């Protein structure tokens, strides 16, 4: 079974702080990590490989430093990592990014399974993976908990708001993984060492002679950022005080009743 996993390098959003004076995002010193949901996607891929054999290929789009997440993927068990990188790809929105990644997948494939995380924690759109499926014309199943193969059928369990759907489909299929899908494995020391000396080939625009250049980068992105701002917070709350928890509780309930909230 050939599996490709799309991985994104993201800033650890739990570590991001706001500059209180300039009211801007402080990106400096914020660690870059593998998008957590992509780790679940990789784990799903590795489990499929463990069960059915085959190869797991990790791809990431981004600048040179994104090779770090590909090395991490290899240290967890991916067989190969490819970095999709070119200045021409910069500024891509989800439409353009998914188009470029679909081109890379076609070039490296064919694959039976294409995996991705349900969303990235920086952009939080959840759109890129299903959009890749659309560019490829592939079957897609988002929020997949697990996959198994029965003859020529693929059985997937898919998490939706109301419960779990059991879905029957066929290869090739694109799936996205969630936190509930699994617990990603740890890298072994020997894999870690191996990943450091592994070559991470790059795919640049020269590798895609037939790419439609009107669909890539900032220019090829139908959505454009008009403005960005940091949310303003102004403390206007009323302090509820008292000499005992009971007094505080009484005072809060009085205030809520006065405001007709209770």
């Amino acid at each position, binding site marked *: 079974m050939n599996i490709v996993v799309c991985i994104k390098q993201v*800033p650890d*959003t739990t570590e991001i702080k706001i500059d209180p004076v300039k009211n801007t*995002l402080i990106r400096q010193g914020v660690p870059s990590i593998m998008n957590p949901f992509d780790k679940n996607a990789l784990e799903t891929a590795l489990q499929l490989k463990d069960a059915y054999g085959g190869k797991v290929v990790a791809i990431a789009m981004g600048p040179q430093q994104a090779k770090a997440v590909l090395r991490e993927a290899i240290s967890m068990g991916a067989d190969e990592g490819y970095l999709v990188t070119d200045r021409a790809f910069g500024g891509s*929105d*989800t*439409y353009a990014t*998914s188009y470029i990644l679909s081109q890379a997948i076609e070039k490296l494939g064919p694959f039976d399974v294409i995996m991705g995380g349900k*969303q990235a924690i*920086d952009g*939080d*759109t*959840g*759109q890129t993976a*299903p*959009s890749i*499926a*659309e*560019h490829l014309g592939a*079957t897609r199943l*988002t929020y997949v908990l697990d996959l198994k193969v029965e003859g020529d059928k693929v059985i997937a369990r898919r*998490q*939706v*708001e*109301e*419960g*779990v*759907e*059991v879905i*029957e*489909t*066929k290869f090739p299929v694109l799936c996205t993984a*969630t936190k*509930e899908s699994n617990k990603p494995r740890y890298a072994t020391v020997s894999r870690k060492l191996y990943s450091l000396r592994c070559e991470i080939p790059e795919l640049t625009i020269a590798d895609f002679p037939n790419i439609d250049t009107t669909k890539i980068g900032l220019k090829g*992105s*139908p*959505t*454009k*950022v*008009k403005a*960005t*701002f*940091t*949310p303003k*917070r*102004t*403390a*206007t*709350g009323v*302090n*509820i005080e008292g000499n005992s*928890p009971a007094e*505080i*509780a*009484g005072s*809060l*309930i009085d205030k*809520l009743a006065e*405001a007709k*909230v*209770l």
Partner: protein
Amino acid sequence: MSFETCKDVWVFIECFQGEPKNVGLELLGQGRKLADGLKQQLCAVVIGKDVDAAVKAAAEYGAEKVYVVKGDEYENYSADAYGHAFLKLCEKYDPNTILVGATVNGRDLGSKLAVSLHTGLTADCTALSVEEESGNVVWERPAFGGNLYAQILCSETRPQMGTCRPGAFKKGQPNPDNKPEVITEDIPTPAEQIRTKVVEFIKAAEDQGMRLDEADVIVSGGRAMKNAENFAVLQELADVLSGTVGCSRAAVDAGWMPQTRQVGQTGSTVSPKIYFACGISGAVQHVAGMSESGTIVAINKDETAPIFEVADYCIVGDLFEVVPALVKELKARQQA
């Protein structure tokens, strides 16, 4: 799709087993605002096997037109069938703007439509408005875990599309007298075109309590809860107020609560009448999911906790003392 001829604001009314989800009705309220700004009509799109409840709800919540596609193949969502039907409607009626709920299926459908129509889709919008001169919708959304907000435009292609999370907006007042034009289109999707088949559905366990996006009162706990068992303290307060329990990402990461209970950027967006934040520091990623609540009560030992910046009522104290005192006092008053 043509920039000049496209018209109207479409809202997808997503259903589950024939019942319209709230998010579609919430979006009709936002769609109304956009349609007024664009001086166009507000239309609902209903796709399903049993569509009557959704058509009725779309009417009550203000649609001027309802496009309906009906058939057995639409009983369960599939990107293939729903996408096919929706794209046929787009080809025929050429919408200007499409709003879709940012649900599991809505995010999938939105992506499919946007790529097929070669247009832009903005995810998880929290505020929508119209730029009058250009006719562009300004899609406002949080990113980086709510640390940053961006205004996005889709200025060169149509339709312009966005998703909004359930609970991000409130439903308007229903009007049972609103009588929209209902246009039923016969768009079958051949079985061989539908590559995924739902063979079984396992309903989520009932004991998870009231849904977060439907609760009037939410009592949430964070890192300070210390363990899973302590959430019983919050459950008591929720019970007295006929509400439900939520939590921050810290509590999910620690394994104390299921992800379905998480409020915030990577969990649910909620806007209950009262939100109790108990032992929650107030990371932006959490606040992004609850700041639209009617009234926010924060209880935290740390007086510098950022949650106090968004709270309406601030209690600096130990939640394990304050919450039980609240339960006791509320019970006493309810009996009086």
